[in-house]
């Protein structure tokens, strides 16, 4: 440990516990803003587990980016500060730290099968409150919303029943209570 090296750079830090955090990033909806955010993550070696982005306030040209990332608490703080200093970023809220947020994801799940598998898939979809949005004689596409864990669980159950493919939106999040992200600060 801490053996002297022949490098002029400090040694890599010891592995620390990684945490997963959901960040809501309110940005100006301008060309290149997503590239700035993603480029920051890529350039500084941060992780992106999931990313969603869409315009949320048309009149103000504001978009909301929800990004799920992992890192040590120090790295998570860095990510927030680095994001915050990007010029088109208005606000960064750590939904995980704030603690009172709701997170949802939408998934479309294609399953192919006949006979008992088909019936079982429908039954499970019903239990998960997934909707059938496309059907053929040998396939279904289910639409499902919920927390990521619920979607994971549903996909795991569909696997033996003929899962073909999955398309997921990634996590979106919103804080509980009356306050909004773009409400005036201070």
């Amino acid at each position, binding site marked *: 440990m801490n053996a002297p090296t*022949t490098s002029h750079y400090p040694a890599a830090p010891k592995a620390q516990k990684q945490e997963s955090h959901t960040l809501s990033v309110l940005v100006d909806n301008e060309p290149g803003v997503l590239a700035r955010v993603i480029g920051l993550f890529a350039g500084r070696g941060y992780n992106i587990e999931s990313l969603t982005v869409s315009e949320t306030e048309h009149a103000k040209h504001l978009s909301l980016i929800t990004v799920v990332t992992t890192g040590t608490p120090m790295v998570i703080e860095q990510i927030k500060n680095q994001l915050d200093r990007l*010029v088109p*970023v208005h606000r960064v809220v750590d939904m995980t730290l704030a603690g009172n947020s709701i997170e949802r994801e939408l998934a479309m799940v294609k399953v192919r099968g006949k006979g008992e598998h088909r019936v079982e898939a429908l039954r499970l979809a019903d239990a998960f409150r997934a909707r059938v949005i496309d059907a053929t004689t040998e396939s279904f596409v289910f639409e499902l919303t919920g927390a990521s864990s619920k979607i994971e669980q549903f996909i795991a159950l569909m696997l033996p029943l003929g899962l073909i493919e999955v398309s997921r939106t990634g996590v979106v999040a919103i804080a509980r209570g009356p306050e909004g992200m773009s409400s005036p600060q201070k």
Partner: protein
Amino acid sequence: MSEEMSGAEMVIRALADQGVKHLFGYPGGAVLPIYDAIFAQDKVQHILVRHEQGAVHAAEGYARSTGKVGCVLVTSGPGATNAVTGLTDALMDSIPIVCITGQVPTHLIGNDAFQECDTVGITRPCTKYNYLVKRIEDLPRVLHEAFHIAASGRPGPVVVDIPKDIQFAKGIYSRPKDFAHTGYRPKVKGDLDKIKAAVELMAHAKRPLFYTGGGVVNSGKHASELLRELVKLAGFPITSTLMGLGAFPAADPQWMGMLGMHGTLEANMAMHDCDVMICIGARFDDRITGRVDAFSPGSKKIHVDIDPSSINKNIHVDIPIVGDCAHVLEDMVRLWRTGAKHADKKALGDWWKQIDKWRGRKSLAYRASNEVIKPQYAIQRLFELTKDRDTYITTEVGQHQMWAAQFYRFQEPNRWMTSGGLGTMGYGLPASVGVQLAHPKSLVIDIAGEASVLMTMQEISTAVQYRLPVKIFILNNQYMGMVRQWQELLHGGRYSESYSEALPDFVKLAEAYHAHGIRCEKPGDLDHAIREMIDVDKPVLFDCVVDPKENCFPMIPSGRAHNEMILGDAAETLDEAITEQGKVMV
């Protein structure tokens, strides 16, 4: 105050409205309309460089020595890509730059057109912000916003990429009153409760020190004055990073010299052993901290920085204060005075005794010679012969840069222009051109190495063209000295590709450029030669032939803490500190 004009005219008009006097640039197809607009006016003087990298470094030197925004104009494609090194340099060292790049016409963007490149894509990670202007209506706002963003908060480079059709297009020019980017509001006032806590901590410190950086210089002259006041009031020792030199006068007894990898023993030992560290406008860079887990283990740390992302990045601090140095220092001085704070006199006395012991080791000492010019001696003589003049120093990157930082004793801020963060060889010569332009009556010296200076040597031609009498003082050791030093100390003396083979005759080179050349090889001739360099009213290439084997000490060896420095005389004991492990990391 709205007027109709072309996009190209708007560019020059906006620069003039921003008070820009000098613009460093190089023409090309995609900026010809702007060059046409330059031709038709005399408010903004264009300085023709020889390479776009030189334009940005010149603008950096200009900005760093004046506190103003440096301005650059380059063409599309290769013009923009050549500017990238300079932009990255400015970003790392927080230098305010506005760089205008030409772009192919909007209908050709993405078409792999002649001299097209994705300028905003390429420069996104190496600028504070950048714009591609696709509508003439946006141009006046963007131009002024660029200056605002470059200069405010933590300064940095901003690129404005303007397609050629937008330069031709007619529009209404007016100077905007506010900024569209409502998300961009740098915090300049520090949190008063935290400043109070910091002052309280300082008042109870037994082994305190100030550790300051380039942020104090960026914050303006007033910040340096306030820093001096606070340091005097408190009576604490002070050290500074490479970028912060000059904010506190080196002649002051409280000054401990630079800290970090090639800092003084006293500065680094004090960093390691202090109980309260007051970091102002510095960022705990890896050249400063050495081994992070052994960095100043027993201290409470106060960190003042305008950029929240600099805080808790490398080192956890106890009292983070987000704000501009001058504002926070002003509050600190006021609170210290009104609270009638006093440092613990007895403890501070003991601390100073300890520091004097470290000073007694004379960590900057070197073996003098009558035969060969020692590089340290050359800098010392240069300092002695120029200290009473109005002098600005730039440097390239390497051993000579560290020796300049160690031996040239700066008394004032904005007098020292060097590439710290990026470590760009070739910075110093074009930077000196920018500095000389901003300070035509001053003595501007680039302390250079023979390898670095060849990277941007062509800019001596710029200096000659504009009659800028910059002095390029080359410590010629015929090696990429710092590379050779690392190879000697860390790679078993295998000097792979670090010898400067086939060097030009710098005196003849100077003559070829219509500049003045001087060569000096003997210590006894040095003073006379330096005086000649100062007296010649022309750009000078001074070939100072120095000891090729001299190493830069003291030095924190790899993977070691501040209290494990090696000094010059102890160099031979370094071998035991070396293992094969970690070579891959450089």
